[in-house]
């Protein structure tokens, strides 16, 4: 897309290491999927960076563990960014974001920690794409461990986890959530399972249930299962050891898969652009009415619409609402 001068100034500040510019560009990426090619203007991230997804039911202690992970990763000289994804209200679109408090205190005095909350709003182009682009931005800024936190329910949240190269599933004894993860397929996505609040009764039973469930699957792949008491920072170092180990072993990117992803992204952007054009296109309304009255058939109308709109796809006219900032 075409970027405004303001946007380009932000890019320059970003390159100079300005965190406020980073924060602004995250907002841009989150609000405007078609701005994602911005990443191309930035140097590719240094090798060795990783995006790590952390998921689990509310109350399992995600934020507390994240606090421990942040501190531990910092001790190992990683620069750490956190993307905390919270659901938006389906009614108003507003959102109460972040439980920053447990993480923020670790982060207060350390510029090498960056925490950002996102709402899982229904942005065109999808939450997971948004999270992916923002993760890439953070990696390019020099944060080499990007932790993505999300509750493990819902389609959008599951998709977010696919953005991560390593997925940590958090569970705790005594909640009976096991069935839920199995249904969600989460348990099979996880590279690492952490049983938090391991000082509570029922740990052995939970661990056995996990192993049974995993062994029953077709691939019979049982990832490491670790125990933590995140509130006392117990077991957190072992989680980091395992994470680092998994990161170091991960395979390189597969070009065929990249081909698929490029097409997916292109499809999404095309669809979005098409809808924007359609919003300003009165003949589409007329066509729709004609189809509704039985005067035209839907296939002919579709073909005609495509013929009319396709040539305009690449033009620079933008919807009015964006003219405030775009040139």
């Amino acid at each position: 897309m075409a970027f405004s001068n303001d946007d380009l100034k932000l890019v320059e500040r970003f390159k100079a290491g300005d965190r406020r510019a980073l924060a602004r560009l995250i907002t841009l990426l989150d609000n405007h999927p078609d701005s994602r090619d911005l990443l191309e203007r930035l140097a590719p991230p240094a090798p060795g960076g990783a995006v790590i997804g952390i998921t689990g039911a509310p109350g399992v202690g995600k934020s507390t563990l994240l606090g421990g992970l942040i501190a531990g990763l910092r001790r190992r000289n990683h620069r750490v960014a956190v993307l905390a994804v919270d659901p938006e209200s389906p009614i108003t679109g507003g959102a109460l974001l972040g439980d920053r408090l447990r993480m923020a205190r670790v982060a207060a005095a350390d510029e090498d920690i960056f925490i950002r909350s996102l709402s899982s709003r229904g942005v065109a182009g999808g939450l997971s794409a948004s999270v992916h682009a923002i993760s890439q931005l953070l990696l390019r800024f020099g944060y080499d461990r990007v932790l993505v936190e999300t509750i493990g329910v819902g389609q959008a949240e599951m998709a977010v986890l696919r953005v991560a190269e390593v997925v940590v599933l958090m569970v705790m004894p005594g909640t009976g959530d096991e069935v839920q993860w199995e249904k969600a397929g989460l348990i099979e996505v996880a590279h690492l399972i952490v049983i938090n609040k391991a000082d509570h009764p029922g740990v052995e039973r939970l661990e056995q249930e996990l192993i049974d469930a995993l062994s029953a699957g077709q691939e019979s792949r049982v990832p490491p299962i670790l125990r933590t008491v995140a509130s006392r920072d117990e077991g957190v170092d072992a989680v980091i050891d395992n994470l680092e180990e998994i990161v170091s072993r991960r395979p390189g990117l597969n070009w065929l898969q990249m081909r698929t992803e490029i097409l997916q992204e292109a499809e999404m952007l095309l669809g979005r652009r098409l809808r924007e054009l359609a919003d300003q296109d009165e003949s589409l309304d007329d066509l729709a009415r004609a189809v509704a009255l039985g005067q035209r058939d839907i296939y002919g109308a579709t073909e005609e619409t495509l013929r009319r709109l396709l040539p305009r796809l690449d033009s620079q006219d933008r919807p009015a609402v964006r003219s405030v900032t775009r040139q």
Partner: protein
Amino acid sequence: MSTKVQGDRQGAEPPAARHDPTRERDARFTTLSDHPVQPLYTPADLADWDYQSKLGSPGEYPFTRGIHQTMYRGRLWTMRQFAGFGTAEDTNQRFKFLLDKGQTGLSTAFDLPTLMGVDSDHPMSAGEVGRCGVAVDSLADMERLFDGIDLGEVSTSMTINAPASILLAFYLVVAEKQGAPWTRVNGTLQNDILKEFHAQNEVVFPPEPSVRLIVDLIEFCTKHVPKYNTVSISGYHIREAGSTAAQELAFTLADGFHYVEQCIQRGLDVDTFAPRLSFFWNAHSDFFEEIAKFRAARRIWAREMRHRYGARNDRSLLLRCHAQTAGCSLTEQQPMVNIVRTAFEALSAVLGGTQSLHTNSMDETLSLPTENAVTIALRTQQVIACETGVANVIDPLGGSYFVEKLTDELEAEAYEYFKKIDELGGMIAAVGAGFFRRQIAEASYRLSQQMEAGQKHIVGVSIFNDDTHSIPTLAIDHEVERRQLGRLAELKGRRDNAKVAAALDDLRRTARAGGNTMEPILAATRVYATVGEMMGALKDVYGAFEGGTGW
């Protein structure tokens, strides 16, 4: 509202059937907690109601009408006004003044750093030292606070929670140094950490070890300080955080039950510690709802203590309580109107049968109260006691169709909440799941929405808000903080720091081994370890509670 319709109740046609809802003014006929109320209550509302099982005589099971046989005809409630001033010396002066005037009970408010278990020199304490109460960092401050006051004679109430065992240890060591035997030491600790998790947020450790500390303290006092009131189980703050009356009732009682269960699990006989538990309620602005709440609380507590926890001593069944008028009902606008609010709230606590009462000063929302405002607040109680005649008759509203019905309804609502807590896996699990915080936030949000929509009103704010008047307020002195910091630095240089380190290690060891923490806390107190140091040592073992927004 469905409750306006009088259905086919038993017996003769109730008079309410003649009520025509279409002729009612446009208003939301519910209590402050949004509990629906009927236009009229009649014998039909108490159809299956049995006097003996629901009320009984005052001083008899289930104690609905009051815990004493004679109630206020025997002895009026205690008029206890809570106070705290910047430094230990200032408060000490105030204490001596009050004792000279014949008062025997002292009440201490601590500043925020003390309440949160950090020292005055902690970075987070900046701007807070000595502001909302007295700053106590170590035994040295406690010695100044009670200098020249015989701790074998006075009774002291201390509003402290997370670091309660440390402050009690300070108090006991001062007594020890005065030569006052612990068996004579008398007073009350708030020491109710669960309501902090639900509402007031002055928490340091995760829920489980926090409760363990309380059980340690109860166990210790049962053996060594038998006259001390170990926990003041508090609904006050739950209500201030925006709960409904039923939530205040249910959550507070559930907290009490949890402490009782944990003590029994520790191996204590219920009748040895239960008589030293007391309660602290809010007296809010919905008059009858509050009265019903006090009455329902006594009945539930007595029943559960007897039947669920097997108490045999009648004193274990008594819900003794303190009440305070609702700080959150006061307004900054037209502050003199607060005097009127407080009077009605105080009256509801008295009609509810409270054992002691604090009336808020009209300027509480503006600053620390001025002397004039405190005096009016106290006079309010005295007018109720001496002029209104309400203290002449025991439980004068007993038998009112409305009050009895509302008492029953609140009781039933409380049991619904008990059931929900059980379903969540008990108290600690429910705290962990954010159940209480979410329930309270919901209720508080609902009320604010009703206010915004004009369905509930606050005089002088949302309605009749045309005139404004103001009252003089008390300025706060920043000098206190500087002086306290100097003292703490001086103490840390003067004491034997090797002994302090050893005592703190010992405290860690005991906590790790799951032993009773009171003895090592007393030992650390004697070598002048600070509140922050001891809390830090415990944090090393228990971990820190880092909150949760709990929407």
